[in-house]
C-alpha cells in the first residue's frame, strides 16, 4: 500500500461526529506534525470542512498506516476510537485516487457541483505544503486532482445552473439583465428567504438595495446588512418604478402589487424590464402581472421548478463527470506505474552490464594476446548476448506498466533478476 485515505463525510457520519473530528486552521500544523512522527508515514494532508474530515497519507516501504492514522484521529480529537470507527472509511491506492478526484470535482459533495470544495482542498494542500508534509507522490496525485476538477467543471458545466431557490433568483436576474452592477433591488417584507436572495444579488454586484417593511426596526436590521436604504412602507409603491428587481415576502394576505400598479410602473420606466420575485405565501403579487410586456414575475413555485430542472440537469452532467474521472484515474495509475517501472529498467540494465564486465575480465587472462579485431568481437558478442536477454523483460515491463495488474508482474521481474535493493 502506498496511499491511504481515512475519513468521514456527510454520508457516513452525522454532524455530531463530524464536528468532533473537525480540525481548525490553528490546530492543523500540530496535527500534521503528529502524523509525521509516525515512522511509516511519508506524507500527509488533512482536509477538514463542514461536510467532511479526511486524512490522506503516503507510506514508506509498504508500511500499513491504517492503525496509526486511526489512533492519531482518536487521540488528537480526544474521541474514543469505538465511537468513530463505524463512521470511518479507509480507501487505499486506486480507490483512494478515485475518491480524491471525485471530492475535488465536487461529485462527493452534499450539493453536487458546488464550487467551494476545490478551494478547500487547495487550502488543505497549501497548509500541508507550507508545513513540509507533502513532496512527491501525494503532491503528484493532488495537483492532478486539481486539474481533473477543472476539466470536469469546464467539460460538463456541472456548476453552471442554480440549485437553490435564492440562487435561482439571481440566475434569472442575470438572464434578464446581463450585468447586475447598476441594478436597483427592492425587498418588500424582510423575511429569511428574501434576505438570502438579497445576499446573493448583493454578492453578484447589485449593490443598490432598498428595504421596506411594516416594522421599521426589522427593515433597519436588514438594510444594515447590505448598506441598503430604507423606504417607508406606505410609500414603496411610489418608488417602485425606479426598481429593476423587486423581491416580496411580506405576510400580507392580499396582493400588495397589482396589475394596475405594474402597468403604471412600466409606463414610467419607458418599458425597461422589471423582474418581480414573489417568495411569499400567500402570494403578494397579482399573478396576471406577468402578462404585461417587459414584466417578469416568478413566484416560489416557479423558482422551485427552475431548481428542480437544474438538479435533474446536474445529475445528468454528474454521470458524464464520473466517466471523465474513471478515465483520469486510469491515466493517473498508468503514469504512476510508468514512474515505478523506469528505475527497474535502469537497474536491470546496470545489473546485466556489471555481470558482463566481470565475466569478460575473469576470462580475459586465459585467452592470451588477442588482435584488436578479436577484442572487438568478444565485446560485441557479450553485449549482444545481454541485449537479447534483457529485451524480453524490458518490453514486458513497459507493457505491464499500463496494465491494471501490472504491479505483480513488475515485482516478479524484480525478484527474478534479484533487483531488490
Amino acid at each position, binding site marked *: 500500500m502506498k496511499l491511504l485515505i481515512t475519513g468521514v463525510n456527510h454520508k457516513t457520519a452525522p454532524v455530531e461526529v463530524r464536528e468532533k473530528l473537525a480540525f481548525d486552521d490553528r490546530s492543523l500544523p500540530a496535527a500534521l506534525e503528529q502524523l509525521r512522527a509516525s515512522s511509516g508515514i511519508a506524507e500527509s494532508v488533512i482536509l477538514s470542512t463542514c461536510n467532511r474530515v479526511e486524512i490522506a497519507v503516503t507510506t514508506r516501504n509498504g508500511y500499513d498506516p491504517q492503525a496509526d492514522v486511526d489512533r492519531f484521529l482518536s487521540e488528537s480529537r480526544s474521541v474514543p476510537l469505538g465511537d468513530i470507527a463505524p463512521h470511518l472509511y479507509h480507501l487505499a491506492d486506486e480507490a483512494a485516487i478515485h475518491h480524491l478526484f471525485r471530492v475535488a470535482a465536487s461529485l462527493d459533495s452534499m450539493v453536487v457541483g458546488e464550487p467551494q470544495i476545490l478551494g478547500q482542498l487547495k487550502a488543505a494542500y497549501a497548509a500541508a505544503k507550507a508545513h513540509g508534509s507533502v513532496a512527491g507522490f501525494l503532491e503528484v496525485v493532488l495537483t492532478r486532482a486539481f486539474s481533473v476538477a477543472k476539466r470536469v467543471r469546464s467539460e460538463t458545466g456541472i456548476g*453552471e*445552473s442554480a440549485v437553490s431557490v435564492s440562487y435561482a433568483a439571481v*440566475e*434569472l436576474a*442575470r*438572464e*434578464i*439583465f*446581463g*450585468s447586475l452592477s447598476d441594478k436597483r433591488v427592492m425587498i418588500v417584507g424582510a423575511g429569511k428567504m428574501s434576505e438570502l436572495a438579497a445576499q446573493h444579488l448583493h454578492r453578484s454586484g447589485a449593490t443598490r438595495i432598498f428595504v421596506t417593511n411594516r416594522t421599521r426596526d426589522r427593515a433597519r436590521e436588514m438594510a444594515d446588512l447590505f448598506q441598503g436604504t430604507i423606504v417607508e412602507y406606505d410609500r414603496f409603491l411610489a418608488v417602485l418604478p425606479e426598481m429593476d428587481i423587486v423581491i416580496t415576502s411580506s405576510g400580507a394576505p392580499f396582493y400588495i402589487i397589482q396589475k394596475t400598479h405594474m402597468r403604471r410602473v412600466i409606463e414610467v*420606466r*419607458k*418599458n*425597461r*424590464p422589471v423582474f418581480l420575485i414573489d417568495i411569499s405565501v400567500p402570494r403578494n403579487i397579482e399573478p396576471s402581472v*406577468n402578462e404585461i*410586456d*417587459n414584466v*417578469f414575475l*416568478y413566484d416560489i413555485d*416557479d423558482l422551485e*421548478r*427552475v431548481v428542480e*430542472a*437544474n438538479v*435533474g*440537469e446536474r445529475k445528468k452532467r454528474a454521470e458524464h463527470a464520473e466517466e471523465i474521472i474513471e478515465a483520469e484515474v486510469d491515466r493517473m495509475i498508468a503514469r504512476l506505474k510508468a514512474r515505478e517501472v523506469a528505475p527497474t529498467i535502469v537497474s536491470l540494465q546496470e545489473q546485466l552490464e556489471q555481470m558482463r564486465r566481470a565475466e569478460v575480465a575473469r576470462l580475459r587472462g586465459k585467452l592470451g594476446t588477442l588482435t584488436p579485431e578479436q577484442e572487438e568481437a568478444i565485446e560485441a558478442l557479450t553485449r549482444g548476448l545481454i541485449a537479447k536477454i534483457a529485451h524480453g523483460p524490458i518490453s514486458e515491463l513497459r507493457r505491464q506498466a499500463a496494465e491494471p495488474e501490472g504491479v505483480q508482474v513488475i515485482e516478479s521481474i524484480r525478484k527474478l533478476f534479484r533487483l531488490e535493493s
Partner: protein
Amino acid sequence: MHEMSILWLRVAVVLYSLGLLHVLLTVIHRKRERVFRVAMAAFYSGVVVHIVSIVEATVATAHVPANNFFESASLCALLIAVLFLFLYWRYGYESLAVFIFPLVFVLALVGELGSPVGPWTDARVRGAWLAVHIVLVLIGYAALLVTAATSIVYLIRERQLKTKKTAGLSNLPPLGTLDMLMSRALAIGFVFITLAVVAGSIWASIDVGPGWIRNPRIIISLVTWGLYLVIVFFRVTAGWRGRKAAIMVIALVGCFAITWAAHTGLRNLLSR
C-alpha cells in the same frame, strides 16, 4: 427656383445635417449635451438661412414658392422646423429633435434637389458616386440584418423567460445584452441608410433631372426611410423596447427587403 435661393437652401441643408450626429449619439448611447447644443445652434442657423432662401425665392418670383413638389418640400421642411423651435422654446420638447432633425434635413435636401447642379462632368464621377451609395446601403443593410437576427433571438428568449421554461438555455445571451445590441445596430443602420438615401437622391437628381422624385424606386426608398425614422424616434422617446420593438424591427426589415427588390431583382424581372 431662383439661383440665390438655391444657394442659401444648400447652406441650410449642410447646417441641418449636423443634427444627424446628435441623433446617432442619442440612439447609440446617452444624450451628449454638448453635441446637442452644437446641433441645436446649427439648426437655428439653418432655419435662418432657410428663411432667407424662401424670401429670396418669393421676391424673385413675386409669389410664395410652392409651385412644384420640390418647392413645397422645402417650404414644408421650414414650417416643421419653425414649429419644432416653437415647441422647444415653449415646452422644452428636446426629445422630439431625434425625429425632427433628420426629417427636416431630408425634406430640405429633396427640395434642394429640384434644381440639379448640372450634368455629370465625368462618367467616372458618376460611377464612383453610385458605388459610394451602394457601399453605404450595404453597410446599413448589414446592420439592419444584425438587428433583425438579434430581435428574433430576443423574442425566443423573452418567450422562454415569460413561460418560465428556462432549463438549459444559458447559452443564449441575456435579454439586456440583446436589447442593447439591438439598439446599437439599429442606430448604426439608421445612420448609414440615411447617408445612403442622401447619396442616392443626389445621384438620381443629377442623373435623371427634376423628374427623379417621381421614380417609384425613389418613393419606396423614402417611405421606408420614413418608417425607419419613426421606429428610431419611438425607441428613443417612448422607450419602445423588448417584444414590441423586436416585432417592429422585423417588420422594418420586411419593408427594406421590398425596397431592395425594387432596386435590383424585380426591376429586371418586370422590364423583361
